[in-house]
């Protein structure tokens, strides 16, 4: 095949992919076959495996990539809302569609019929495990944000160390002018940054959010990523995030932006303040605005669905918090202090073990469930693995003797929510902490829709 023919062939395949995918996208939307579907992208990639690369070739769109274990959806939402408020046109992949096919789907949607993408910005949140794969098609991102790296679904993702090795390899192929914002409080991410041989903007939590006295149980990276010596922490925020130094090889926390920024009314907890800070750093890059002004753009943004999402249903106020891995769950529990103040309330724990949740529920033993009782008047467990959760909760407390049992166990989700309503007589909102599919189910039962 000569060069022209080959080019023509590639173009044909690309447009065939685009048109077919657009048709499917149209069908899905017209007949309400589910929102946020990854089908159009999946089809486009089947026909043209480099569809994402070809879509973006020659496009002026500035692409911002966001990855990490926890906080991707909230941070992406903040960045998108901030950019929109400044009048920028932004495309983004819908939450839950953070694999390559999700990125492809969002490109299918916004491509014009001649294959052009006109938006000024694209914000893509990416699953930490496919991040490297996506970088093989998005070769010139404008900015990359690395949020954190915790243990999560080892059945799917493998070990934290293996993921970071793949990231370094993939990130090393990006052009020098790529801007990086990296959470320098995470030793594993700081290690990645140091091996990239380029200018990196590091951020970290403010000292007020670094009040942990002991190394918690849910850590993965408290040993020096360079030489394996135990790191010495002078301050910790949560999990293995903090200010650290290796006494042997002198690997240490980088210079970080930690000056205090105002928090947001609807996003409580240390972990959300990391998300806000991360979003501000990206807006600061993208819009060339000072931090404070970037932060102001986020005023009034409400949480993404299922992330400290508040609504009223069955005459009660509810807060639903997605809690899907040890560090995430521990942070959800810690945020209850800010959400509830001195009040105790009804807390519903939903544990599912479907593919999006991770099929292994062992991790619940890494969560400090002992603390839940501080905030709970009643604890109700539900979901596919209700009884595993019940065993965990019963082990978590001494007081749970049969008669004073504040623990109610109900595998049927609908009945569990009815129990919440029935038992809840206080002012404070009912709290639901749920794994991914559990969260979707709860929303569907309470407000009649799984997704927004």
């Amino acid at each position, binding site marked *: 095949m000569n060069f022209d023919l080959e080019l023509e062939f590639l173009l044909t395949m690309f447009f065939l992919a685009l048109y077919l995918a657009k048709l499917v996208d149209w069908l899905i939307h017209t007949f309400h076959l589910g929102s946020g579907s990854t089908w159009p992208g999946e089809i486009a990639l089947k026909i043209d495996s480099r569809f994402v690369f070809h879509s973006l070739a020659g496009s002026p769109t500035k692409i911002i990539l966001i990855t990490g274990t926890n906080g991707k959806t909230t941070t992406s939402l903040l960045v998108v809302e901030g950019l929109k408020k400044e009048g920028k046109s932004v495309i983004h992949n819908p939450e839950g569609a953070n694999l390559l096919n999700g990125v492809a789907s969002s490109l299918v949607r916004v491509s014009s019929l001649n294959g052009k993408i006109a938006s000024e910005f694209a914000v893509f949140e990416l699953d930490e495990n496919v991040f490297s794969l996506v970088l093989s098609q998005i070769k010139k991102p404008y900015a990359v944000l690395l949020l954190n790296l915790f243990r999560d679904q080892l059945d799917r993702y493998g070990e934290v*160390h293996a993921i970071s090795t793949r990231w370094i390899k993939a990130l090393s192929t990006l052009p020098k002018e790529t801007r990086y914002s990296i959470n320098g409080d995470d030793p594993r991410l700081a290690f990645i940054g140091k091996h990239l041989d380029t200018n990196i903007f590091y951020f970290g939590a403010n000292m007020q959010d670094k009040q942990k006295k002991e*190394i918690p149980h849910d850590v993965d990276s408290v040993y020096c990523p360079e030489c*394996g010596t135990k790191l010495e922490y002078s301050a910790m925020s949560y999990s293995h995030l903090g200010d650290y130094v290796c006494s042997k090889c002198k690997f240490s926390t980088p210079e970080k932006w930690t000056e205090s920024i105002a928090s947001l009314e609807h996003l409580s907890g240390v972990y959300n303040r990391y998300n806000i800070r991360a979003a501000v750093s990206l807006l600061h890059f993208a819009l060339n605005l000072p931090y404070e002004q970037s932060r102001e753009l986020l005023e009034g943004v409400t949480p993404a669905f299922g992330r400290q999402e508040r609504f009223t249903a069955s005459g009660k106020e509810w807060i639903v918090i997605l809690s899907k891995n040890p560090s995430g769950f521990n942070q959800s529990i810690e945020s209850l202090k800010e959400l509830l103040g001195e009040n105790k309330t009804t807390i519903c724990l939903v544990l599912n073990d479907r593919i999006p949740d991770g*099929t*292994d529920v062992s*991790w619940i*033993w890494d969560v400090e469930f002992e603390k839940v009782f501080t905030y709970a008047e009643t604890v109700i467990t539900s979901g596919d693995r209700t009884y595993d959760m019940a065993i965990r909760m019963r082990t978590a407390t001494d007081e749970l003797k049969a008669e004073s049992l504040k623990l109610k166990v109900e595998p049927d989700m609908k009945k569990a929510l009815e129990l919440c309503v029935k038992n809840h007589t206080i002012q404070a909102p009912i709290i639901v902490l749920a794994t991914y599919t559990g969260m979707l189910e709860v929303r569907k039962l309470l407000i009649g829709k799984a997704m927004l």
Partner: protein
Amino acid sequence: MKIQVPNSKFKIRIGWLYPELMSTYGDRGNILYFRKRCDQRNIGTELLSIDSSFSPGQFKDLDFIFGGGSQDTEQELVMRNLMGNKAESLKSKVERGTPALFVCGSPQLMGRFYEPGVGKRIDGLGIFDIESIHPGPLVPRCIGNTVGEVYWENLSAVRIERVIIGFENHGGRTILGKNVKPFAKVVKGFGNNGNDKTEGMVYKNAVGCYYHGPFLPKNPAVADFFIQRIIEVKYGEHIKLDKLDDTYENKARETLLRRFNIL
């Protein structure tokens, strides 16, 4: 976890191998649950970390040894610290009949050697007569919910609850030598190597298995077996344990067994 001070004459000192380095995915559940079950029966427990500050001489104080899994990098750190006098002390402890439970990746370290998918062969402690080889990153890992049937006769215990459930996630494949006996027969899952239907291994009062995370909370009978055996070894008394309310445990087991159409 708060443990009330018991007035019982029994006290179990638990040695936990490198809790910071070897608790990858819920392995801690075994410790929390084991202590809870002792506590409910008024049996005292004390938890000691076998880590870099633990001396070889301290092994003699232990009545029960527990080891969980670790990620590859951490495994290397563990072995560097453990090899030598500490390893010898641990070995002779097991040799003299101290009950021990190794879950997830730790049996590999207690075997003759472990060959990782990439990199050099790691010498194990040689407590178990087993050899483990990782077939390389291209061969799929053994992952999923598991069901097994314990060979209680290999543990010279009365036949109690035979079925064990759990979750496995390992790359390495293990072959048993003639000085160990299999712990269980694979009913669902891969087991030691995906071929011979064996799960785990037993040597004296030490048990190893690939089931990871909260193995004891899922299998209260195994937890109780260890409590009884530990007291037998330490005090020379065979005691009958008070029955506990295992409604949730039984339901959790039922849920999984139903999924596999075993119930």
